[in-house]
């Protein structure tokens, strides 16, 4: 084994790019948990909104992984 590392820098870039959506998804679910804790009866309504926000934030990470492969 030597100290050589092979691979594409794209994957490092993807890892960095995933930080943003990761923080975003965390914030969305934090807000959702807060909302349900304060008002449990609103869970049904909040759930849809939370999952929608999660899907939109996650889209960035998903576009990132697609581009990491495409531009490789």
């Amino acid at each position: 084994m030597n100290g050589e590392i092979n691979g594409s820098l794209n994957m490092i870039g993807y890892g960095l790019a995933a930080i943003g959506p990761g923080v975003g998804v965390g914030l969305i679910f934090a807000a959702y948990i807060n909302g349900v804790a304060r008002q449990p009866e609103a869970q049904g309504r909040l759930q849809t909104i939370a999952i929608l926000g999660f899907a939109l934030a996650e889209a960035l990470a998903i576009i990132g992984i697609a581009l990491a492969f495409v531009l490789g």
Partner: protein
Amino acid sequence: MRFTGADVLASEGFEPPGPADFDLPPIGPSSTFEMFGQSFYLGLTKPMLQIVMAGALVFWFFYAASKHRAMVPGKLQYVGEAGYGFVRNSLGRDIIGSRDFMRFVPYLFALFFFILLNNWFATIPFIQFPTMSRSGMVYALAALSWIVYNAVGIKKHGFGGYLKLQTVPAGMKGPILLLLIPLEFMSNILVRPFTLALRLFANMFAGHLLLILFALGGEYLLIHGSALVKPVGVVAWLLFIAIAFLEILIQFLQAYVFVLLNAMYISGALSDEH
């Protein structure tokens, strides 16, 4: 390039899995042809069989569940009704609104269970390949939903009215519209089908790739690693099992999100004002 177990054993270094692992060889007789600088199969592949199987299975299940309807439902009818009620109430009624959601329930219902089963094929033993990790399958679904929500909107508001609804945010006046109209057109008409398709495709693709990586990496560490790293291979396999369970959840969630967004787009196209 496909790796079989023997290849991995024979090769010296670890070959990480890549997009090539999703190019399954065709089943039965086939030929290849060249187009756009790529070679295409002309034959039957596993995802093709899976997508037909998913359609047939979903139809068969709900046909059987609704065949012998009774006031007091049996087990099968109960499961069928629970699934139908879930899509009808939480995806149809709550989002499209109680006025005209019933028109879209058959579409949303069929779409949800079709995608769900196709995603769960990634987990079901002996199949274990997500149909939607082949992007062509997803583009077709996204194109269908693009046609549906645009057609519904144009039918209700007329072509000009629909374009105005989708591109001019309510209450906006003046020169800012020069900036807003192209942006809204881009995001509401042009980009939506692509994000819709890419979300489902890339989730299934990345999830399956992750599982391949943990399985092959664990195997490599266990067999080719020195004595010190062999336990890491066992840890990798334990993580593989944990991630496989996480994937079941993600597969469900992605089917839900796909249909949720479809319903949102339809409700946006039907709304009178923003």
